[in-house]
């Protein structure tokens, strides 16, 4: 067992974990933060996307021990004081989801895109989301949602 201390959604957590525990399982099983989903478990689909020190990463391809001493933001960490984050709100308003399975990962990837470039074009949003697969929406409303969130932030 190895000790890890991770700041998750602003709160510091310390646990003894097996080195082989994946970050996504640490979040879901150890911390009961089940908003982060497991789709493919092979680094492809992006359902498990979280922010690690602000950068979008696939938490199914990282060990929890790799996050030691760093900070993680999951979908549960976006809403503040009972109010949805602008990106969450935009996905709701623009119907950027159907079944919702890809949505937590989509939203966190989208947050990173606008964080890096608040004026991202439609094409940049589309390529920025290339690592997030959606089986339902056909992507158009997702892209619209990100554009709407960008608009609103201006």
């Amino acid at each position, binding site marked *: 067992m190895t000790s890890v201390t991770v700041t998750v959604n602003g709160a510091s957590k310390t646990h003894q974990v097996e080195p082989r525990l994946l970050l996504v399982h640490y979040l879901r099983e150890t911390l009961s933060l089940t908003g982060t989903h497991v789709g493919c478990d*092979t680094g492809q689909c992006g359902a498990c996307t979280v922010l690690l020190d602000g950068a979008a990463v696939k938490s199914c391809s990282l060990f929890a021990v790799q996050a030691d001493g760093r900070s993680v933001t999951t979908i549960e960490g976006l809403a503040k004081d009972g109010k949805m984050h602008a990106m969450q709100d935009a996905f709701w308003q623009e119907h950027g989801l159907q079944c919702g399975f890809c949505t937590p990962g989509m939203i966190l990837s989208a947050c990173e895109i606008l964080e890096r470039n608040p004026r991202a074009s439609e094409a940049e949003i589309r390529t920025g989301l290339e690592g997030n697969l959606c089986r339902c929406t056909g992507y158009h409303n997702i892209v619209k949602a990100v554009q709407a969130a960008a608009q609103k932030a201006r």
Partner: protein
Amino acid sequence: MRHFSYQRAASVEDAVRAGPGAAFLAGGTSLVDLMKLEVLNPSRLVDVSRLDLRGIEARPDGLRIGACATNSEVAAHPEVKRRFPVLSEALLSGASPQLRNVATVAGNLMQRTRCAYYRDLATACNKREPGSGCAALEGWTRMHAILGGSERCIALHPSDMCVAMAALQAVIHVRGPNGDRDIPFGDFHLLPGDHPEREFALEPGELVLSVFIPFSAAGMRSRYVKVRDRASYAFALASCAAGLEIASGKIRAAQLALGGVGTKPWRVPEAEQALQGQSPERVAFQRAAEIAVRGAQTRRDNAFKMELARRTAVRALTLAAEGA
């Protein structure tokens, strides 16, 4: 996944000392995946991702890129974009933002093949299990190599970054129990031959510290073209890194490497030489492309790669000639 012990290296010396018998862990995007599949089963992991090996530094004669710089950082670096557009383009054409944010230069250099048989414990694979045979030879070969294969292995080298670095004639700097050495890019990846399980020219415990890329006029006028089954987020069916130095209407120097076709990143010096002194036009590009795929051995499902690779090379050379 099997049990292993984990240790975070405190310094390069610490990592080199712990290296023999262990596997280095960088971003984990290739290694963790293969450990889940139990294709790779290291009993000890030495995490090198937090070592001070992330810098990207301009030298008088080239750019030195730290082994742990992430693929995102390298692709976005102004000097990389200015000096070696082909490298930035190649990196951005690979994987996805979340993967590039953690994937490192050294990890990309040493990412393993995506051969479906290598990844499937139920099938024969000489790379995974020496002597067990190669299921690909009689199998589905759409994603397999047509250049550099042997009767033991035709696994494709999947990297985009490496194709650009091969063309740019990078040099890999490593440190091991016996000290430091430089490995020319073309010598780093080994052809499968009789020993497909030997993939890199690294001695046990050797750690990649940095990659040096010499400045060149051709590097500044370089492009990467990648053709794949869908417009984004897929491995290459064929790709090409091409750079041209053009003076007084003639090609003075050329850099050319192919991806998606070889068992290693496929630089072809003969094709580069054939371009020298020629006008930067289609006939010359086609002749170089012809030379580049010389010796290719296709199979049932990948015969299309011959023509696709040639056309990809002509396209990349044409774009390079047009300039940025």
